[in-house]
């Protein structure tokens, strides 16, 4: 019963947070100076008629309150509106961007998690050895690199070896064979993915190392060693599993940000993802696009937080107390 109560409370809290986010998204961007009409009408010979036509087309001639009610009503029907810039449904545009981002940021984040766990466990296992110092030092060093700087350095270093940008550059009239297409996208993914992994794995390394060191000092680890289990088995089968608890929140939060994408990395490598789309939409004051982008970002973070709560609830009954 208490479990149900806990889940219900978390669920209601999540729904209220999403509603507040939706409202904040609507008003936040309208507070910014400048709007899409002045932006789009900055073309030679623009006239007041053009500005008025754009205002009507975008629905900006209505009061803010009316615009908000229309936005809420459309949202309840799953309609995120029509992009001011592209005159296409936002949902359609964002789905394309989302697919691209989830591919890049998903692979990058998972890569960073795996590499971070491996290097963190090894660092703790070989504590105070040269390997530990080298490993932790390297992780901290690359963690401190700004991602756009590292991306540019990799771009220059691998010029001519790996594609410099974009997601695909097959200038072929007919659809390329499946594997050639996969290979093309994969080769374009290498540099941005490596940039993502290198700038993110250090955080996991440090958390895992610290958690592992704590776990390795526990009595049951001592008992396992006393029973004559091999070092490798003690570390990987007994310690690692218990040391992973702090990673749950970190991973859940980071996976939430996967949807938001890595804006700077997407921009550096011209990756047509949601981060770049949101950034562009913001500078163009394309309210429906930017609202849609932020909605996806915030809702995914909130839902993954909720998921993290549920996982914690499952793993550790004390949280419901």
């Amino acid at each position, binding site marked *: 019963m208490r479990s149900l109560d806990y889940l219900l409370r978390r669920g209601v809290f999540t729904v209220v947070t999403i509603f507040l986010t939706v409202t904040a998204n609507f008003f936040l961007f309208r507070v*910014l*100076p*400048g*709007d899409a009409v*002045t*932006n*789009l*009408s*900055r*073309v*030679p*010979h*623009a*006239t*007041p*008629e*053009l*500005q*008025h*036509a754009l205002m*009507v087309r975008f629905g900006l001639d209505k009061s803010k309150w009316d615009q908000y009610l229309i936005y809420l009503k459309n949202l309840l029907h799953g309609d995120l509106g029509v992009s001011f*810039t*592209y*005159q*296409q449904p936002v949902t359609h*545009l964002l789905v*394309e961007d989302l697919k691209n981002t989830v591919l890049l940021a998903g692979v990058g984040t998972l890569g960073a998690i795996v590499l971070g766990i491996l290097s963190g466990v090894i660092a703790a296992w070989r504590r105070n050895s040269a390997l530990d110092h080298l490993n932790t030092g390297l992780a901290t060093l690359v963690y401190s690199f700004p991602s756009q700087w590292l991306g*540019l350095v990799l*771009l*220059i270093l691998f*010029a*001519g070896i790996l*594609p*410099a*940008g*974009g*997601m*695909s*550059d*097959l*200038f*072929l*009239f007919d659809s390329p064979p499946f*594997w*050639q297409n*996969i*290979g*093309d996208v*994969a*080769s374009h993914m290498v540099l941005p993915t490596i940039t993502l992994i290198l700038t993110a794995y250090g955080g996991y390394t440090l958390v895992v190392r610290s958690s592992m060191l704590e776990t390795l000092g526990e009595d049951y680890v001592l008992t396992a060693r006393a029973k004559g289990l091999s070092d490798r088995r003690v570390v990987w089968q007994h310690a690692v599993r218990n040391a992973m608890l702090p990673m749950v929140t970190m991973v859940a939060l980071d996976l939430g940000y996967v949807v938001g994408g890595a804006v700077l990395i*997407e921009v*550096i*490598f*011209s990756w*047509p993802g949601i981060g*770049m*789309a949101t950034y562009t939409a913001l*500078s*163009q*004051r394309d309210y429906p696009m930017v609202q849609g982008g932020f909605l996806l970002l915030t809702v995914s973070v909130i839902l993954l937080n909720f998921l993290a709560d549920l996982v914690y609830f499952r793993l550790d009954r004390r949280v419901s107390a």
Partner: protein
Amino acid sequence: MRNRFRRAAAALLAVVLAAGGVTACGQAESETADGGVFRFGANQPIDSLNPFVSVVSMAFSVFEQIYPTLVQLDPNDKYAPEFATDWSTSEDGQTWTFHTRPGAKWSDGEPLTAADVAWTLSTIAKFQDGPTAGLANYVVNLDSATAPDANTVVLHYANPVSNVLSRLMSVPILPRHIWQKYAEGKGEALTTFPNTAPIVSGGPFVLVKHQPKQIALFKRNPAYYGPKPHLAGFGIQFFSTDDAMITALKSHQLDAVQSVPATSVRNLESSGFTVLSSPGMRFDSITVNANPKQQAAHRELTNPLLREALDHAINRAEIVKTSLLGHGKPGGAVIAPGTADWTDSSIKPPSFDLGLANRLLDQAGYRRGPDGVRIAGDHPMDYPIILPEDTYSGAGLRSFQIVRGDFERIGVRLEPRLLDNAAANEAAMANKSQDFAMTMWGWSGGTSDPDDTLNYLTCASQGILNDTGYCSKEWDDLYGEQGEAMNPADRHDVVNRMQQLAARERPLLVLDYPDAIEAHSPSWTGLTPVGGASFSSESKLPLLSVRKAG
């Protein structure tokens, strides 16, 4: 289990890398048999393939390749036939008659006639206060567009229009049989039709594939009425940073790049690429608020002596050398040297003379305060200057540092306000341009005609485009006069007088004219930019002439 996983992962990686290798080495090879595919890199994506929605120049450059236009520019900046074979003007300059190519067809086999031209222009004119307002500039004063026969278009204007050809040059002629169903009622459907690939085309190329923000691919249009392109097709890959685009060119992922940053020129030249530099159509400038009703805190900015002093405190030679790395010219007239032959060559860049600037400020009565900053009335001459993203994200920041250093030496302090473009625009227009003191931005004029730049400074453009606070009856009268001057020599005379007026009254302190720079691989030849660009909304000729070298 674990070994099996490793083997599977290794196999997958091998396949991916092998396929990637095929991609890197073999792409486009299969397409080169018949003229090849010319691969462009661009830093601006297509916003929409619907001409009534799009506002970016990249999209209009695409429309130029897939749709007919009545006329186009040639490499000497003269108007050349395109879908129109010849044209004539009535004596009063109000009626223009164009003869079009007989027997032309759209890519779907439907006849392409003068009726398509008349329909396109009439539709733009009909809905110019609504759905087609973005193209209204092309049909200013157009009363009617008719097609008395399949190969003749007659345009009647309410009054003489001096730059009809310049306006028509960029109007994409649309296939009436595709579009007319969207022009019913109030024409609102004209803006919701996405016009996605494959698009029914009448130009030398057909857009066969468009992945937004990634790639656009064009195939030769066998139905094109003009000379056949050497190319089998061409593609554009879109980049969000110049660094990635230039790297892609150097690694032969691309064949050509438009808008090469000055910082990359030497590098590309030393790597064997052909770099083409043309006089630019753009100028960078400082706007010193000219609005006499501006805030009291900086109203002295309208003082002609102060404006003259600021103009002489700009080290244009240093800006060209440091910011543009020599790839540009010092600024003077408001018409850039890339706009055909419209620049008034008698207007020279103001001299860089800090002594003169200081004397002018002394003469105006602005004494230096204890900290070296001059005092105007009750306040120090310390001005916020708006730097939009266009300026601070590029070489403009270096120019600003040069200007700020020199202004400091004449006792005028500048405080930069970095804003994104939308916010900067809002700040400059706020309160009828009474609030801002200065901005540092720029303006891109037309390739063949000065009208866009001249229109920018009119009183009617205030609050829309004119972000200078400048409004002058003399300017507006001259603007009207040049718009109706049907004799080119007369029009040149009026346009020169307008440039001299701008040089005297200084609504803009023109800093420099950056060159238009593009680069391509030496494997291609015959690429002659028109108006500084090989791929623009003004001419089909460059892509019709480019071909594989050797």
